[in-house]
């Protein structure tokens, strides 16, 4: 499987992905073999079902949302580029990268992009605000069945209250940055 994968991925593609995402060559090839192993239909793209086949994702409370994050707006398939683009959010932050290329756009794994990724997981309707309902949904997913709706509501209310500085009883992205534990998200996977 490994050798077949590397022949399908052309060198120039690897270079492009490297430039876009910052992954190293070996990381890209490794992730490509992972991609193909997930791709049961062998059509070069992943669908939602392919993700859902991963057993650990099934028990992850935020699994569905993260799967959705891979798929661009309205689409049902994601190709390898998109796959890598999303995963690139979780690379370690390298501050010197920014210094080298100040004119380039912000790298995918910058602090604010990471936070934006997390923010979008909460904010389903993409209105750049986390409303109480959206927060409730996330809480319900994370907490399971042990807490009643009322209690969850109180937690949600308190959360919004703590974070909300402009009084619209929603959490905007700026408020989200201030309220959450940024260092935690900067833990990386790669």
């Amino acid at each position, binding site marked *: 499987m490994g050798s077949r994968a590397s022949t399908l991925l052309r060198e120039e593609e690897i270079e492009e992905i490297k430039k876009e995402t910052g992954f190293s060559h070996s990381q890209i090839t490794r992730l490509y073999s992972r991609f193909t192993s997930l791709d049961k239909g062998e059509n070069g793209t992943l669908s939602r079902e392919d993700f859902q086949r991963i057993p650990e994702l099934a028990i992850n409370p935020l699994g569905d949302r993260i799967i959705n994050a891979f798929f661009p707006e309205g689409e049902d398939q994601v190709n390898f580029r998109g796959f890598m683009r999303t995963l690139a959010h979780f690379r370690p932050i390298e501050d010197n990268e920014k210094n080298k290329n100040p004119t380039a756009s912000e790298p995918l794994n910058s602090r604010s992009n990471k936070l934006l990724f*997390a923010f979008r997981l909460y904010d389903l309707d993409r209105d750049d605000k986390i409303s109480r309902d959206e927060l409730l949904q996330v809480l319900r997913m*994370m*907490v399971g069945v042990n807490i009643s709706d009322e*209690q969850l509501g109180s937690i949600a209310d308190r*959360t919004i209250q703590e974070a909300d500085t402009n009084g619209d009883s929603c959490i905007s992205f700026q408020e989200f940055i201030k309220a959450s534990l940024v260092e935690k998200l900067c833990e990386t996977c790669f």
Partner: protein
Amino acid sequence: AVPFGLMLLLLPVAVDLLGTAAPQLQGLALGTASPVHHLLHRGPEYGAPGIALARSAAEEPAGFGGEERDAAEHHSGGYRVVQWEWSYVQNPYIIATWLLVASLAKICKSASGVCVCVCVCVCAFKKQIHVLLSALSSLYVHVQADLMDFLLFGALISAVDPVAVLAVFEEVHVNETLFIIVFGESLLNDAVTVVLYKVYISFVEVGAANVQTADYFKGVASFLIVSIGGTLVGLVFAVILGFITRFTKKVRIIEPLFVFLLVYLAYLTAELFSLSAILSMTFCGIGANKYVEANISQKSRTTVKYTMKNLASIAETIIFIFLGISAVDKSKWAWDTGLVSCTLIFIFVFRAAGVVGQTWLLNRFRLVPLDKIDQVVMSYGGLRGAVAFALVVLLDGEKVKAKDYFVATTIVVVFFTVMFQGLTIKPLVKWLKVPRATNRKPTINEEIHERAFDHILTAVEDIAGLQGYHHWRDKWEQFDKNYLSKLLLSKSKYRRSELWEAYQKINIRDAISVIDQVMKFNHLELRPVHEVPQSHRGSDTKEDGGDKPRRNVSWQDKDPMLFPMEPEDTKAEHSDPEKEEDVGIVFVAHKAETPKQRPKSVPAALDVCQSPPAVPSPPPSEDNHLPWKAGLGSPPPCVSVEATKIIPVDLQQAWNQSISSLESVSSPPALAEPVHPRISALSRLGGPRPASYTPPSSSTSVRAPGPQSPFCFLEKKKEVQEKEEEEEETGVSQELQPLMSNLRPPELLPPHPPPPPPPPPGPGRRRNPCVYLRSLVTAPPPGTSELHSRRPTQL
């Protein structure tokens, strides 16, 4: 603390000046210094009747001095009504008096009160380098010893002592990572100490010439066995302990006994198999912590914590007295300048070298590398202590000819590291600007997002097929949730949700701060009302009047409307024992008799639970923090929006008074406006309520407040109910005190009035909300201390 240790060490010098029988006292202390392992089994070999009393001339009159061997003088005819039973009580008397003297010195000497701890740390790699080079130093010393002896000496002198490390670093408050590294090193190197010491002892006994290669391999193998075996023994006992505490609901009073016994058995069992006893105890504690803490009651937690602290303090004191006495007893040691000076230099140099080398290696795998400052602190923080001394004293003088030299050197090393390094580490840390421990106020946002981020990172790792840190941690948590917790946690605790617990804790902290401020402002005091709770059936209590609410640690036992999913078996657990446990004190807000009195604070009131509190006033400087005291024109931003959720309605009388008193002050209209809508809403609520509130419902959930509806409330329970119960208010109030002092500055409660969302529909109970604030001031898990600084310092 270090000056205190200094004093302790020098105390026996004073003793010596009295010309008393120091060796015998030393023997007595040796016999009683049982916490030092290895010594445990020696027993009081020197303890003998008729030991001369040694008293420092400063503290004790010379009345008792020199009294010996008078046991025989009791039989001078007839029956004596009162007899002088000195010999009978002699030993414990002496010990207790010494301890008392030393502890009194603590009061005088240092506010932080942590005794100087003697560290014994053994780090294998560092040790070996040091060991070899100390062997080389034999070229420069005139001590009769060969390589094996020096290896043995090196083995015991390079051990860093956890007790000293703990004490010093606790005072210094370095950041968590650094503390964990150094303290963890000192704990874990016990295994290495045990192994190396025993190995080298056996080599020495056999003679250097007879050591074969196989023996070296056996040494390595024995290290693995000792450390891993010790860990396993500890974990086995941890499982047993967790399992037992699952069923101790009905015998709450002896829960601490289980904890102590099982941990002690873990220690002894490891000793039985000559495995590493300290590792066993450590891992027993680590493993059992989560389950035991959840299962046992608040009172038991407090008991265990403070008992252990006391025992530790006693042990430290004894060790230091012992050390000091030994220093003075010249018969036991012999001085060699070369050995002493070389040792002092080498231990420092080679510890530094070892730290640097290993950090270089570790940094290749670490996400956050250890920088130079960390390394400096790590090498400087290697304090030697009592275990090194104990080990050297236990050497066999016949086999190791140079024992006396070693003893002297060890004493000097210990004195030097403890005094010099211990005293100077704090300025060093300040000078190097080492990052200190952070005291972050917990917020519900952080709790939620931290959990969410964990899930996100785990999912990403799974998608990418990596098996990284999050993957394994998640796997462990799944295993724990599905098997371990089911086995070791009692059913009611198993269903608790961590997020809910965290949320309640945060609310309680806010509630306490609100009450504190309100109380202070209104010159009210909280007085406890002692009522025995009556057990009541089922979950159908009304909120108004009726019985006392159930006071359970678990939120489960509340209104069934909230939890329609409650399964039957937890209902079965709502029997009386569950209800009667963890009952709290009802507080009643009274106007203080003398309004001129300075405001009382809640923790002060808690200090005396049984009587009207003769409370000490909070320091006057705190008044400046209260905004409404600062200036008349300022609004009463005494509560933040968060806190207003949880103002107990029974304090609305207080609110009414405060608001009316504000309005009666010079500029009424201006003051009225900034009043928070909720405050004014509260003041509009109901008429006069009795000062003592009727025990209302059991609602523990915190609801979102509406503009016109009452506030949300929490239950507050103190964990002492019966009068027979012992005094653990001090413990609880101590725990509350830091909380209060943490929350006192109102800049932590910035006022801002966003309109709250409409509250969820609820039953009529909200008209008469419950008024008890539950103090879920639990003993913090390792990782948080009373001050909510995340340090694993409290044992």
